[in-house]
């Protein structure tokens, strides 16, 4: 018997086959349908944004790791996922170089500056987006207008919104976007958005083919299916997403607006399913995740209804990211055997 070759290691001697790369690939797979669909709807310009964003993110990871003389870990697919997520939160008509800079900022500023995978405080994709958004707000605003809406998108409701966006993108596009996406606030926009538009007429386009949002907001349905896939494969838990969306819906309803419209429109779904559930920047314990989800909902609601900025979801997530260490410190899992009376009995 060849005894010299027996491996000695501590238990456990079997492992779950899950690893970091598999997790990242599951998320990428969950995003694949919406990505492909977005490219169909938005065409080439979205493809350039996508490629530039991914290239920027991967270059950022690569150069920082090379520079710090660390092993290059592009093969864990995390930079690819960051670039993809970032692209999906950007307007389809953004200049490609803005997307590239955002991708670079995502991994350099958002991830490697903190020490790399697992050490960052803020969601890297959203850091990249925030950098680009505050640096070139004009490009962001203009990036939404007039996409190549194809057949299924060509409904009356679409035409209404499209007309509003076309006119609005001139003078004060951000405000106009807010008006378009906020039918219950009812003032007449710069170009004369019809009064009293009915939110429910937008359910179907938002679910199936929404050419006015960010690249990844093209179909709420595909985002929801992606989320179901991730929960079913146990890549993410359901708590953050459900409590986030639920809180937004509840607060929206309480303030007298249409909750379903506010769930489907804008970046809430992509944020709640793919951004807020990011491991590194969300709480560890299940109870912490619930608190985090509710916090996200409240901040998003505050920003959407009480600020002049349409970017409710992005800033809500970045803000709550900063609170995660605090949540982790005070909200721990319930420990087994934490029984005061009985513990005293043991001591005596």
């Amino acid at each position, binding site marked *: 018997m060849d005894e010299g070759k027996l491996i000695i290691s501590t238990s456990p001697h*079997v492992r779950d086959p899950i690893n970091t790369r598999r997790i990242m690939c599951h998320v990428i797979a969950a995003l694949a349908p919406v990505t492909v669909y977005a490219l169909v709807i938005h065409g080439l310009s979205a493809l350039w944004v996508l490629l530039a964003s991914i290239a920027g993110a991967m270059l950022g990871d690569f150069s920082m790791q090379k520079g710090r003389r660390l092993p290059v870990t592009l093969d864990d697919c995390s930079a690819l996922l960051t670039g993809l997520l970032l692209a999906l939160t950007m307007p389809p008509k953004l200049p490609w170089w803005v997307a590239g800079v955002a991708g670079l900022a995502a991994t350099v500023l958002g991830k490697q500056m903190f020490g790399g995978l697992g050490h960052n405080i803020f969601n890297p994709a959203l850091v990249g987006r925030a950098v680009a958004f505050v640096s070139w707000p004009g490009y962001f605003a203009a990036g939404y207008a007039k996409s190549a809406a194809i057949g299924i998108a060509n409904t009356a409701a679409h035409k209404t919104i499209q007309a509003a966006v076309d006119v609005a993108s001139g003078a004060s596009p951000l405000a106009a976007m807010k008006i378009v996406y906020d039918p219950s606030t009812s003032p007449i926009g710069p170009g004369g958005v019809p009064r009293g538009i009915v939110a429910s007429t937008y359910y179907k386009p938002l679910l199936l083919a929404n050419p006015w949002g960010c690249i990844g907001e093209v179909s709420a349905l595909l985002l929801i299916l992606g989320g179901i896939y991730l929960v079913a494969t146990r890549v993410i838990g359901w708590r953050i997403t459900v409590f986030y969306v639920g809180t937004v819906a509840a607060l929206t309803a309480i303030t007298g607006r249409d909750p379903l419209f506010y769930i489907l429109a804008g970046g809430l779904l992509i944020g709640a399913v793919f951004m807020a559930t990011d491991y590194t920047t969300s709480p560890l314990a299940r109870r912490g995740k619930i608190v985090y989800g509710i916090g996200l909902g409240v901040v998003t609601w505050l920003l959407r209804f009480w600020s002049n900025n349409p970017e409710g979801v992005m800033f809500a997530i970045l803000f709550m990211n900063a609170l995660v260490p605090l949540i982790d410190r005070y909200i721990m899992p319930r420990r087994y055997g934490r029984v005061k009376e009985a513990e005293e009995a043991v001591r005596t």
Partner: protein
Amino acid sequence: MGRTSGLLYRIRGGVHPPSSKDLTAEKQIRRIEAPATVTIPMRQHIGAPCTPRVKKGDEVLVGTVIGDSEAFVSAPIHSSVSGKVVQVAPQPHPAGGEVLAAIIENDGEYRRDPSLAPPSPWEDMQPEEIRKEVRSAGMVGLGGAAFPTHVKLSPPREYPIDTVILNGAECEPFLTSDYRLLLEEPDAVLEGMRIIMRAVGARRGIVAVEDNKPKAIKAMETCVRGSGIEVASLRTRYPQGAEKVLIANLLHREVPSGGLPMHVGVVVNNVGTAYAIARRFSEGMPLVERVVTVTGSVVREPSNLMVPLGTGFSHAVEACGGFTEPPAKVIMGGPMMGLAQYTLEVPVVKGTSGILALSWKEARYSEPAEPVCIRCGRCVDVCPMGLIPTYLGTYAHNEKWDLLQRLHIEDCIECGCCTYTCPTKNPLVQLIKTGKAELARRRQHAERRESENRAAAEKSEGAGKDG
């Protein structure tokens, strides 16, 4: 007791590794002969090791006491064969290191020590007498931890025991020894349980079996009919068989941090232990053999064996047709908590529930040089004790002793679920074990220094008075 009220908690956590039990589940327990020489270590349980009661050249019989100790937390050790002691010397031990052991030449006759006789019927015995009998038979927990059984059966008067749980969960993958006993010897197992119940004065008895063993559950159910003992079917999930998890799931009681099952009125015993106790009372046999599952993909005929203690691992494997290819790793116990062996020249001891041989393909995985964590929270979700393994692992790695204590590292039951589930292959449970050991060492050191300081202070005070 009244302790259950207000403590209705649902215990979460655990993992579901592939069970791999089909290799041996249908294999009837087969008794094997002891090899030409057996090596019986003087340390086979938690607590004080035994001192040898035999020397080179002594003749021994099956059941002759060859090691014992005056300590309470200890159990005597008996010879499993008849023959001659050829040596008493340190030998490799499957739990690591070298341990003093008696090497006995087997004469192959298996003559029984005449002093062994079945005691009077246990129904007529007082609990105290039963405990004495259990101790003299060298009984320890056969689930793997090997805690001396008579100690478990001697709770102080302040902690009345109302329930005995017979642990047949066998949640470790690959192992089937408890399953086979439940299936083949349900009456003896039940008898052993009733002896335990009488010894601790418990009125309630629960046989707990995971629901992936329906045949065993059925066998026990048929057997307990009319006896008042319950059979509980547990959801199949590791570490369902850990004492604290078992008690919480069956009785909704939580063993307090730092406490023992008796603190919530419970005694938990393994199926194998109950069987061995029954045999002591029916045949007078002390603990000289046990069921061992010899298994793994590289074992030619994976089997459940009744093995005389002191039999070398290599001999047990030979009894199963040997290996089909050289194993990469040999483990005593199951794959979740078992101990990797560097040699097969170690003996089967009381705590050997299984011998598991893994192939190169199964045994290989890489561990990171530095603890990496992507904060996925899987380890937190699976920890049955509600701890945060990733923090414990990181703090142990960085030697943050005060933080480890604040996060209750001592509550860790070392089940390894965190490490099993970690996507970055972080050796969490290993880091935690190291941290626990170092903390215990530091605590001892501090206590010793304090007592020395106190002694020195008293001395100088005394000197002052004298002066």
